[in-house]
């Protein structure tokens, strides 16, 4: 590490190291962040929701969407219907790889199902467009 020789160099370093801490900075301000919940729970482990998670996270990262958090959630969001049929204690709601998107201040999420890599890309670019529009 060479020494920092000016305020501008410090600024460049700050932008670089912001990647270390931005997750912590954004998470403490829950009111202004967009949250993407990838439902995994017990069923998701079997149905490939972990791949969905990876796809979503990689897309968000590639788009450098700082104020968007990707969070794993239990599957109950998608299938908390008590009458849903169960096999071996697992719900069979018929929907896998569910993704909920909560925009800041909104109670109701946008819900997507059967999200694969292509759909993940679509969802994240949709979020980017909407956040940019809100910002402008």
């Amino acid at each position, binding site marked *: *590490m060479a*020494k*920092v*020789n*000016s*305020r501008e*160099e*410090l*600024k460049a*370093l*700050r932008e670089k*190291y*912001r*990647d*270390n*801490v*931005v*997750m*912590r*900075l*954004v*998470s*403490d301000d*829950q009111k202004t962040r967009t949250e993407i*919940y*990838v*439902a*995994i*729970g*017990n069923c*998701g*482990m079997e149905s490939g929701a*972990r791949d969905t*998670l990876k796809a979503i*996270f990689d897309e*968000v*990262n590639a788009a*450098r969407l*700082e104020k968007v*958090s*990707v*969070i*794993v*959630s*239990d*599957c109950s969001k998608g299938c908390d219907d008590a009458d849903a049929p169960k096999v071996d204690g697992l719900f069979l709601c018929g929907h896998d790889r569910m993704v909920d998107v909560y925009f800041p201040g909104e109670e109701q999420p946008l819900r997507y199902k059967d999200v694969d890599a292509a759909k993940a890309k679509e969802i994240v670019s949709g979020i980017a467009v909407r956040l940019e529009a809100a910002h402008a």
Partner: protein
Amino acid sequence: MHKTRLQILICGGTGCISSGCLDVEEQLIASLEKHGIRDEVTIIKAGCFGFCEQGPIVKVYPDNTFYVKVHGDDCDELVSEHLLKGKHVDRLLFKSPITGESCHHHMDMAFYKTQLRIALMHCGMVDPENIEDYIGVGGYEALAKCLTEYTQQEIIDVVKASGLRGRGGAGFPTGNKWQFGLNNQNDKKYIICNADEGDPGAFMDRSIMEGDPHAVIEAMAIAGRAIGADEGVVYIRAEYPLAVNRLRIAIAQAEKYGMLGDNIMNSGFNFRVRVNLGAGAFVCGEETALINSLEGKRGEPRLRPPFPAQKGLWNQPTVNCNVETYACIPLIINRGPEWFKQYGTEKSPGTKVFALAGKINNVGLIEVPMGTTLREVIFEIGGGIPKGKKFKAIQTGGPSGGCICEKHLDVGVDFDTLTSIGSMMGSGGMIVMDEDDCMVNIAKFYLEFTVEESCGKCTPCRIGNTRMYEILDRITKGKGKPEDLVELRELGQTIKDASLCGLGNTAPNPVLSTLNYFMDEYEAHVLHGKCPAGACKDLVNFVITDKCIACSLCAKVCPVNCIHPTGSETPNGKKRFVIDHEACIKCGACLPKCPPKIGAIIKE
């Protein structure tokens, strides 16, 4: 952008280390490897989160889940359920003591809700052993600003305008202190950081140095720039090994990045910081005694004037501030004095860090705006008194402060209000006492501390405090005389008036304040030979009443075998037990053994 999907912060303060956070870190790593997701998680050992009572604490980002009392064995469930499947581990969440509901996010907890973190802003948030984290949250920008935008006078003007007062206890305006340092022309000047935190129950400065050491270093460099010093010394006690270690790491990193050393950021400004270990003498928290100690002399106070800003370390102009004062400086420079002044009271702007200890549910480190009432601190943030006991008093300012009783609980805490009710801010220790604490005994405890810590230079402090201690000792043993109470007041006033330094000036405060607010307890000891709280062993007797059913549970736990079945007969024809008061050592072990529905043993 993000290197990993998850960041897990483990509290790495001294409190959480002693409750087992190192094992948590180890087990967490093992478990992540077992489940094959080690590469999805960054683990950061951060500084103190403040909620020491509930440690070790683990925070999961970006979920924002706050787990308490996490142990090594819990890690596997945390990884397999929460990190993999998104199912929160409910049993490790903090439960609201009022509603019983689980709190997922720390801002849902009463402990954090009303807190405002300025000095502790990055404590428990950045990795204290990694300068990159600190730079990432805007670290060293304030120093850069001072080196490129401000003249020396302008830096001081900003600090003055913020109204920042010294957090070490006396509350002297920091900007004025720096001004004296600048005005005294000299080739060589020094900056000192007073980290000699010695009050019983206080750990504010320690936590800042453990959690955010770069903030202190940056502020010292700013102070050096402001007054024209090129050398800084952190005077810290050797019994803070973790803080010392993290400071040293931070200094080395700052030098490597060119934030300390020669020609910092090409400005022509040179500044170095070194750490000086103290042996842990309370009097060395007094600035002139500290300077003596730094020079290798006995830690005894010097006469003031000349003040350190005129003739300090090695007789050169020296500015000495406390850790917490420094921790506020970078934010004041970056965000402006008006930002700082919006918090707190008119004469005491900003916030204050307090260490809550004693008979309180939420033991820990808190930061609140000045002017917050003691009632809010104790009953909302602190969660009240354990086991439903009654609040009796709170000691602020450590051994130099005084006891504050119930009637003053609605006073907003700042430098001036606390002084006006006979206590002081001190460095921020707060010890809560309940109905089981005897105030005479408490005063004796603090005085014992100052007697031991008095450097011995001034007769009133050296001998006067010892005499006061003897009187208090006599009173707690039931041998006090009514004239003792008069003598305590007179001695106390004389010691305050005739001692040279802050230690002697304030040592009688715990006695004088308890005499003011709890005279009835002193009188009960002296006039009636009773200790109302039942804490003074010599004034207490344990007695077995006729409710005794001769079950013998008490006799079995008695360590000196002084409980024998020699009393009257129970309806079943068994002999009731009797305590032999000659042999009894008043340990109280028998009391909880008597079943509550019987309740035959009483303390009188």
